[in-house]
């Protein structure tokens, strides 16, 4: 019985948390000028209207597509780079300055150059976003790899684990919190950059819409689109990330 009750309890917590957030928003919005912070109801109205005419689903799906591709690319490539740097001191010494340069290249520069070199294509857009995020993932996973416990690597060496087994059973479980951190803040960052990418060279997507509403200073419109994305992220977090995390962290909770 208790096992069944768990998901329900979690849903309850979520509903409570979310309602509280909306409540805070509603209260604040009555205190300030509605034009600058419309009430939740007003934003919901816009959201429903935009959903009804199909605009919001369309732009949302375009943005989600870009975010998803860029995310997968960035996590895979950035993770590999970060793990390589963290594991090999020589590589690290040599490439750390490169990593710092890459980290601090302005998004604008990367986006514009990528558009100019590869044209106003979807690939250029997604690539530019990934390039912006890769160094961040690399920086996080590099720290994680440097913090790996040699106890376990030594054991794996003695028992001659294959490299796949090492990665899967020794390294990745220790890197899980770093991957989780990189994933959560990663999606957030990627979507922030996707907004810029869409602003600078796409004809659809939430960034495109948000900017249009910004031109008209329609805060309700901006929030409607932004929140549509946020809602999807909440759903992904609750339905994918969190269950995965609970699974990966089972062993930790044993004495808690």
């Amino acid at each position, binding site marked *: 019985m208790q096992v069944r009750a768990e998901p329900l309890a979690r849903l309850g917590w979520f509903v409570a948390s979310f309602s509280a957030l909306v409540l805070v928003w509603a209260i604040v919005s009555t205190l300030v000028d509605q034009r*600058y912070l419309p009430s939740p109801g007003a934003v919901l109205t816009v959201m429903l209207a935009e959903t009804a005419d199909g605009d919001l689903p369309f732009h949302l799906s375009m943005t989600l597509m870009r975010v998803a591709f860029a995310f997968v690319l960035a996590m895979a490539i950035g993770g590999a780079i970060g793990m390589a740097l963290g594991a090999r001191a020589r590589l690290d010494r040599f490439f750390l300055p490169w990593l710092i340069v890459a980290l601090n290249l302005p998004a604008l520069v990367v986006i*514009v150059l990528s*558009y*100019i070199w590869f*044209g*106003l294509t979807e690939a250029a857009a997604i690539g530019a976003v990934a390039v912006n995020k890769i160094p961040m993932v690399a920086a996080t996973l590099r720290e994680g790899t440097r913090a790996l416990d040699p106890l376990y690597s030594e054991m794996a060496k003695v028992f001659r684990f294959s490299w796949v087994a090492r990665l899967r059973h020794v390294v990745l479980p220790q890197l899980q919190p770093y991957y989780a951190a990189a994933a959560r803040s990663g999606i957030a960052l990627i979507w922030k950059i996707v907004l810029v990418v*869409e*602003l*600078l*060279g*796409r*004809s659809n997507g939430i*960034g*495109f*819409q*948000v*900017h*249009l509403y*910004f*031109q*008209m*200073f329609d805060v309700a419109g901006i929030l409607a689109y932004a929140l549509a994305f946020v809602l999807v992220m909440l759903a992904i977090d609750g339905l994918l990330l969190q269950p995965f995390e609970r699974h990966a962290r089972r062993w930790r909770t044993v004495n808690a």
Partner: protein
Amino acid sequence: QESKVPEVRVGILEYGTVAWELATVKDYELDAAHDIALEIVPFAGEDATAIALKTGAVDVIVSDWLWVSRMRSEGEDFVLTPYSTSAAALMVPQDSPLEDIEDLTGQRLGVAGGPLDKSWLLLQGLASERFDRDLAEANEISYGAPPLLSEMLKADRLDAVLTFWHYAARLEAEGFRELIGTQDVAYALGAKGNVSMLGYVFRRDWARDNPEAIQGFIAATTAAKQLLASDDDEWRRLQETGVIRDEGETLLALRDSYRDGIPRRGGAQDRQDAALLYEILAQIGGEDLVGGARVFDPETYWGLAGAR
């Protein structure tokens, strides 16, 4: 199938002013009437349209002659044909004590488009010529995004805002008044008429290789301009089809400003005035603004004598 008509891809700001004109072309199939196929490619920012033209994703965008001239100095063979004489206006609240640009000292002044914006440079040029005053020094300048500046003005966080014409029109509809417009400044600086600040910009190669395309495009947009200039119902149509989202007073203000901005002179005169203004701008803006080219490149205007 019927014979293929040349395609013209135009990169525009969705809900921008150009969209009104092009939507009209589409609605009345003026493109087909002039033997072209118009494709509207919407973007969310000015920068995006510029990148789109650079990368060849579109054939035509709207920009100003200053930018075209600067790009030409860097080897891009862009040219332009007039689109609008509207540029910017300095807006103040109705009850503002400011009456003339001479009063502009110690004010909180918002400027759209940044320190190298042409209207801002011209205004500075005028002030320094007339009163020997450096506006940038004498006032507290905030550069910022136009919508943000409008809100700042409404919230009384700024005393005056120099902003693009459609933002100015909206402000006017909300009870703000224009202190001075870019055209007034241009006149004061010696221009002979309304200078086309904005034009349709494209590559000269493209225009040369597709003469029917560019001619058809100009004809189609000119026809659209006439419709919008003469018939008020057209504006209701634009509003009903969702191309314009403004209503009431604002719509009227936008309409009037748009009509004021329709170029009425030949390109040759425009070019003369542009050359004049360019000199002034080059003086104030310096190399940052105009790059290596100290004098106006006459080839900037497409289709005029000497530009062939």
